[in-house]
């Protein structure tokens, strides 16, 4: 029977939840790395027991953790205690240095700060880790200040793909409230050279040559909070989702507006339809129905909690515009949590499971595509990210 593993990153550690295919009883392990912020944990599609975790701290900086046994044990890649004084140290798995070399890099320019002045790029943390679809030792990292890095040695060393930051629009990129982060990385399973990324607040970008060159893909986005609402750069994209069977179709939750592209991001149109608010962070796609998508509307700008204190997932079975509220099993009064951008995921069992985590520490799951919900763990620290693995 299949199994499901849910990887939960929180403000104070990582948790790994496992269940059989019935998804009724969950074993919870953790906290791993207690006290540290776990921005994201994700498994390799090639080797599901190979997990990567972004483990950060305002005190001690960035750590990369890796597991080879599905989260039972962890290591800092290359960080083993050296056997003897004077031995050659391994590369540092937490060293993210922007490539400004004359051979391969781009000059380190500046980006816009909150007050409109320019600031130099400074690495702060890894927001998102995206393992390769074909090689368990290759993994991409989206970082703050926004840039894309890649490791091809299992996370031991990282190198920037400088064409993105060197696109030339950097001085127009600016931080969202959470920082200037590259938070979404989508690998196209049908085209190894194609990668989509999104930055808050710059917008979405696409490469078709494996990361050498990048194109902003923001045509059709409209953001009233920037001087030119339809500018090529400056949009606060919160998350982007894609169904692997239709890699040219993208769904986006923007700061406001739920958007859709049918041409690999070349153009976007709004599909917010009848949502009670088109603000939110997460967006995801049903594992077997590429036109069924999910969002969690959140009240903004100041509040960042569900409208009316009712936690509702909205589902569209028409690829947007027509939305239905999913409420069974979710709190429908006095609920003032948030659901952050990387905190929703799906499993790929026959009856698709949907999962999301809240800043109140609950992880909710539906094993029937959203019709009914139940918490599979509650009272964790604030949830930053949720990823799901469907295991044989």
């Amino acid at each position: 029977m299949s199994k499901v593993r849910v990887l939960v990153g929180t403000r104070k550690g990582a948790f790994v939840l496992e269940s059989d295919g019935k998804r009724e009883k969950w074993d919870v392990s953790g906290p791993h790395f207690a006290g540290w912020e776990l921005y994201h944990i994700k498994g390799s599609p090639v080797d599901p027991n190979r997990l990567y975790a972004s483990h950060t701290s305002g005190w001690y900086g960035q750590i990369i953790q890796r597991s080879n046994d599905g989260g039972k044990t962890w290591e800092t890649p290359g960080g083993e205690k050296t056997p003897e004084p004077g031995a050659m140290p391994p590369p540092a798995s937490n060293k993210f240095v922007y490539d400004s070399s004359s051979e391969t890099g781009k000059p380190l320019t500046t980006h816009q700060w909150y007050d409109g002045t320019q600031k130099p790029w400074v690495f702060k943390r890894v927001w998102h880790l995206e393992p390769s679809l074909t090689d368990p030792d290759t993994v991409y990292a989206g970082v703050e200040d926004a840039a894309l890095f890649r490791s091809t040695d299992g996370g031991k060393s990282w190198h920037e793909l400088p064409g993105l930051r060197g696109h030339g629009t950097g001085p127009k990129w600016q931080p969202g409230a959470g920082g200037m982060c590259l938070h979404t990385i989508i690998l196209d399973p049908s085209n190894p050279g194609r990668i989509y990324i999104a930055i808050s607040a710059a917008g979405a970008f696409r490469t078709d040559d494996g990361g050498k060159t990048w194109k902003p893909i923001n045509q059709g986005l409209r953001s009233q909070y920037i001087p030119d609402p339809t500018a090529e750069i400056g949009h606060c994209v919160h998350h982007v989702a894609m169904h692997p069977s239709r890699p040219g179709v993208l769904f986006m939750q923007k700061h406001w507006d739920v958007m859709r592209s049918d041409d690999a991001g070349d153009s976007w149109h709004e599909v917010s339809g009848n949502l009670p608010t088109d603000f939110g962070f997460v967006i995801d796609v049903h594992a077997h129905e590429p036109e069924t998508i999910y969002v969690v509307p959140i009240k903004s700008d100041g509040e960042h909690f569900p409208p009316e204190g009712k936690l509702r997932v909205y589902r569209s079975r028409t690829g947007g515009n027509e939305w239905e509220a999913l409420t069974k099993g979710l709190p429908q009064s006095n609920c003032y949590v948030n659901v952050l951008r990387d905190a929703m995921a799906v499993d790929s069992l026959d009856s698709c499971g949907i999962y999301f985590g809240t800043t109140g520490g609950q992880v909710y799951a539906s094993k029937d595509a959203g019709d009914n919900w139940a918490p599979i763990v509650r009272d964790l620290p604030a949830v930053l990210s949720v990823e799901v693995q469907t295991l044989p």
Partner: protein
Amino acid sequence: MIRVILPQHLRTLARVGSEVELEVEGRVTQRSVLDALEARYPMLRGTIRDHVTQQRRPFLRFFACEEDLSHEPPDAPLPDSVASGAEPFLIIGAIAGG
């Protein structure tokens, strides 16, 4: 033998107890102690001082012999009692945050 006391989170990361002992060749300074610490425990690289600038992380301080040495030059000699191992070199994480 130089004694170094680490903050709790770095003990966990390095899988050591509260105090580690290090051999330091040459002059005993902040830099030479941290170089020896990072060489022995590579997972600590970047957690105490920045990889590139080598600047101390702002939420960490260096104490020894009841003095705050955080703002001393990195190549200044540490007190004799640290160099002799009589007193430890303390790396302190700020008490802050929720």
